[in-house]
């Protein structure tokens, strides 16, 4: 298990958004988290990445309890994510956006930067190369010089993925990556996720597009009203009557 979530609970002003959710993610696999809108999926994501702190329960990553870590420390440990409403740095170019992803894997400090020491130059070169590589990986190799804000939405999503990969994560959390993409783009995205999995990176996925989830996920967890209602292989989930009434329909 690379990630283990145990009894995770979050209450907002008396309302329980997530109630004692527990699951694990095995290394090198794709796990999907599905459930109706407002079921608490994004809240769970935010607790894993540290954007909000859990009211109760633990998040264990690589055997270490990381509850007390702020987001950037968790990123340093190897957890990276994308966002439901794409979050780019719109006034930076695509290349610079992805170079920000290299932040963790370079270490120029303030003084080295100010004096532009050789260390700093080397870091810059390294980051640039890495960023170009990742942009090429997601198929944006020729868009690197454009401002992130001027890219089409699908491209921004891909750029966000490249940025995530540039931080050399062990685990990536994808929050509804297919939202707003059409059928064909979604298929392309599924291919990309599988390619990322091939690189040995573990994936936790939140998605409403069932076709994609069924195609890429090794295992699926279903939550509703903040509690886990089912867990299993895509096949099992597809036939689970609870899931059908709560989420899938028909």
């Amino acid at each position: 298990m690379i990630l283990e979530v145990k009894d995770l609970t979050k209450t907002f002003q008396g309302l329980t958004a997530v109630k004692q959710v527990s699951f694990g993610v095995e290394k090198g696999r794709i796990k999907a988290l599905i459930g109706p809108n407002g079921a608490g999926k994004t809240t769970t994501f935010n607790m894993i990445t540290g954007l909000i702190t859990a009211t109760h329960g633990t998040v264990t990553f690589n055997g270490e309890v990381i509850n007390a870590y702020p987001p950037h420390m968790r990123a340093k440990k190897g957890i990276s994510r994308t966002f439901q409403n794409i979050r780019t740095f719109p006034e930076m170019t695509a290349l610079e956006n992805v170079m920000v992803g290299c932040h963790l894997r370079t270490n120029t400090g303030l003084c080295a930067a100010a004096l532009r020491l050789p260390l700093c130059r080397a870091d810059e070169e390294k980051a640039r190369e890495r960023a170009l590589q990742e942009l090429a990986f997601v198929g944006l190799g020729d868009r690197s010089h454009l401002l992130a804000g001027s890219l089409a939405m699908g491209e921004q999503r891909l750029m966000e993925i490249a940025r995530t990969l540039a931080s050399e994560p062990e685990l990536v959390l994808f929050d509804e990556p297919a939202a707003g993409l059409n059928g064909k783009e979604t298929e392309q995205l599924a291919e990309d996720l599988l390619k990322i999995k091939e690189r040995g990176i573990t994936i936790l996925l939140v998605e409403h597009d069932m076709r994609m989830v069924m195609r890429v996920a090794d295992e699926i967890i279903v939550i509703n009203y903040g509690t886990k209602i089912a867990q299993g292989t895509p096949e099992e989930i597809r036939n689970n009557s609870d899931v059908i009434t709560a989420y899938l329909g028909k």
Partner: protein
Amino acid sequence: MLTIENLNVDYGGIQALKGISLKVNENEIVSVLGANGAGKSTLLMSISGIVTASQGSIVFDGQEISGKSSSQIVRIGISQVPEGREVFKGLSIQDNLMMGTYHHHSKSTKQSIADDLNRVFDYFPRLKERRTQFAGTLSGGEQQMLAIGRGIMARPKLLMLDEPSLGLAPLIIEDIFMILLALHKENIPILLIEQNAKAALRIATRGYVMEAGRIIMEGKASDLLEDKHIVSAYLGG
């Protein structure tokens, strides 16, 4: 009902719409498909008067509406449910719905507005339960219901929806499309823009396909569903 001819829209030097011609007849659900950035939202915005067309005509109910302000257009009877819901998060759910009545509020009787409200609550019982809560506390699916409800409160002669299924769970998408069909039965024509092409074409009577600001194909929805090009480009294998 709605007839658009040769519509052109420029966005800061970039031509977003190039000679669009489109029609919505009475009692129709027309859906417009297309990739991101094809100009679908711009089309709706120019019908609503948020964006002004550089050329072309939009005739609604026999009346030329291009060049009219958005508030005039709402008054004429076109109501849009915008992409991404855009509910007023700081207002209560009931107040959100009441905002839909803004353009006829002073002319309508209290009773007729209350009837409308009840009609919406019949469609979306979940909204009724939470009528006094802030809209910001709703989940994505509920917000979409609210946005549609707000559109209905405007008593539209034409309802336009921009990606109502965006980011919603399968079950809720189904609910929403059922409600669109129900509205259609009440003789409200609908112009629907959807990324989720399959679902859209299933309920639509006719469909248009847009690419790079142009309409490249149009036809009966059932025909489009079977078209090879559409299947490979938008529906996925």
